[in-house]
């Protein structure tokens, strides 16, 4: 008896454990279903809610943040009830799948859908093959658009890099480093729409008989010139007055990265060069610049991407008039204003293609770093 008992006890205990385990699994599953339903209902509640705005926002934060946490928790619990082999397979799915699902739905899939739309005509009813792409590359208004994007990249990126380097190098030697950096950096906190308002005020023009309240025209008239409508005149050079705005905003970004890179250049190399009698300019161009070349390339890529996608500034300043359209505003105007869905989609695809080289470059950099 006593010899047999432990076995039987163990057997029944195991059975009880298995039963409890199954019950817990069922309970967790039910909890998961309930949580999912509550979250799903919350979706409709939030969508249709007439409650005060901040209450809705607060509820959304709890719904979003808390709901996510609960779903992850429950999914993880469920996975833990499976065999250890399945656990190894499923746990990564629980961690990674939601983010992937969002990114696929909001970025990857739309690229395919937009490409398909670009092969159809203006209301999407007839297949037209590559006709929209032929329009994109032959219509004069599109060629003006591409020319402007080239201007944006050439002038926008180069001035941002030059000013960023200049400020980073100067600030590194100044006592007012932090103050100066904060001032240059500040425009990054402002929206492009807000920056548009700021600069519209600077470019403001009035009748020559009135007092000029725009700073630029006030300076011009004080020097004896005629007031000019800067953003409407002298095409294509009016684009430069829009590009100035983005240089003003992006220089802070370039400066921060350059500043960090300059500070990591070994001081003993600079010291040695100084001892050898090299001037500050020589040190800058033959020691500092080569050692931060990697950062220069990264910043250039980022700024080029940013200028390629530029939209808000142009829309607010000119709406794309006076020969200032860029790809992103042209997309908006063709799709949402002219309602030419096929052409609008084709322009969006072109915009995607222009960033592919940077995408490839990013991936190369990333792989290089991962294999180190």
């Amino acid at each position, binding site marked *: 008896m006593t010899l047999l008992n432990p076995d039987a006890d163990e057997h029944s205990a195991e059975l009880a454990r298995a039963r409890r385990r199954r019950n817990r699994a069922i309970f967790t599953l039910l909890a998961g279903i309930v949580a999912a339903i509550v979250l799903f209902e919350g979706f409709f509640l939030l*969508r249709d809610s007439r409650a005060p*705005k*901040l209450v*809705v*926002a*607060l509820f*959304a*934060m709890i*719904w*979003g943040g808390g709901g*996510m*946490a609960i779903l992850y928790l429950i999914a*993880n619990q469920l996975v*833990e009830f499976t065999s250890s082999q399945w656990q190894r*397979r499923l*746990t*990564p799915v629980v*961690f*990674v799948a939601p*983010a*992937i699902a969002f990114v696929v739905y*909001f*970025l*990857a899939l*739309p*690229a395919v*859908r937009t490409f398909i739309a670009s092969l159809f005509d203006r209301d999407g009813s007839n297949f037209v093959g590559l006709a929209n792409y032929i329009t994109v590359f032959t219509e004069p208004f599109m060629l003006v658009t591409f020319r402007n994007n080239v201007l944006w990249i050439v002038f926008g990126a180069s001035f941002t890099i030059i000013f960023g380097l*200049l*400020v980073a190098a100067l*600030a590194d030697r*100044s006592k*007012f480093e932090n103050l*100066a950096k*904060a*001032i240059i950096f*500040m425009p990054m*906190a*402002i*929206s*492009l*729409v*807000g920056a548009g*308002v700021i600069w519209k*005020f600077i470019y*403001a023009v009035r009748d020559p008989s009135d007092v000029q*309240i725009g*700073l630029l025209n006030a300076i011009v008239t004080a020097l004896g010139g005629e007031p000019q409508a800067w953003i409407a005149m002298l095409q294509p050079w009016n684009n430069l007055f829009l590009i100035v705005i983005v240089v003003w905003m992006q220089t802070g970004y370039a400066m*921060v*990265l350059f500043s960090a890179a300059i500070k990591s250049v070994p001081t003993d190399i600079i*010291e040695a060069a*100084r001892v050898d009698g090299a001037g500050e300019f020589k040190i800058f161009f033959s020691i500092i610049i080569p050692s931060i070349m990697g950062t220069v390339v*990264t*910043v250039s890529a980022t700024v080029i*991407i940013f200028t390629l996608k530029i939209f808000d500034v142009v829309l607010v300043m000119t709406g794309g008039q006076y020969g200032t359209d860029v790809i992103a505003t042209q997309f908006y105007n063709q*799709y*949402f204003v002219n309602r030419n869905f096929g052409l609008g989609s084709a322009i*969006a695809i072109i915009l*995607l293609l222009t960033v592919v080289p940077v995408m490839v470059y*990013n991936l190369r950099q990333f792989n290089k770093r*991962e294999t180190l």
Partner: protein
Amino acid sequence: MAKSKGNPFPRVFVNTTLVVICLLWLIPTLGLFVSSFRPRDEIMSSGWWTILPHRVWVTTEQFTPDPSIDRTGVMNFEGATGTFEQLRQGVESPDGKRVVWIGNRRAGTVQVQEKQWTGIPATTLQNYRDVLVGKNVTIEGNAEEAARKGEDMADAFINSMAVTFPAVVIPILMAAFAAYGFAWMRFPGRKLVFALMVALLVVPLQIALVPVLTDYVHLKLNGTYMSVWLAHTGFGLPLAVFLLYNYISTLPREIMEAAIVDGASHFKIFWRLVLPLSTPALASFAIFQFLWVWNDYLVALIFIGNVPGVQVLTMRLADMVGSRGSDWHLLTAGGFVSMLLPLIVFFSLQRYFVRGLTAGSVK
């Protein structure tokens, strides 16, 4: 550092150049800020820089000249001599006064002016009242504008908050889970999937707007806060995962291994260990996403569109540029209202923002 040994010329050169550049960078915003506090009439009649103390001609005396004076020849008032044409332009006398002939040759008056320092410039909060209030505001003077509707930016401000806060909170946890998965779990296709995530960092939003909008219309989501939260979650996730991955993958391996040896599950390690340790990275992404969503115009424009009562600040401001393009008293105040919160967040949390920038410089 050899900074102290550098000769004095570069030091002066460095600081002067830096000051000039800083002024160039500061003046545009300063102009907006100063103008937003100036009364409407002053904005329209003089540049904002005139609030700086400077000397202007102030009329101290005005009289009708003696009818007997020959007005076709050279005349003399208060020591200033000139013909009628010269006096019309103003003639300065040797003792620093200026004499100006106002009106026509026969029935004009003569003003004697002296240079005086300008006093304290007039300031007002009326502009802010005009842009913030949604109800009718009375404006003195012009009768047709007397009962103009305010720009209701207070409402837009609340909308911006209601759009931004959830759009910052929702993606954070999702991204943290994914970043941990990519960094510390081994599963087939891990590298490939993460590489695709990195590739999506630079995808232009324009590509996504139309298909997503089509689905939103089917789901009756367009014109709601929800549409913008979900869209910003999707658009922000690649950067979030990338930033958090950079941070979480560099956490010391020993800590992780010790926890695994102790029998802790991935979930427990993530919740108890990784999440608290990643606070700096979470903060820098939160600031990024806050500035991005608050300042966004395109996504709000497409998904919220012209539904009234949901418009965010950038949309209101852009509308005002279109509809009230030369009302600088409204535009300057409205512009500043839209910048207030991001500037506060930016300057108080700059450290985290800079860290995020240097870690994720690809977007």
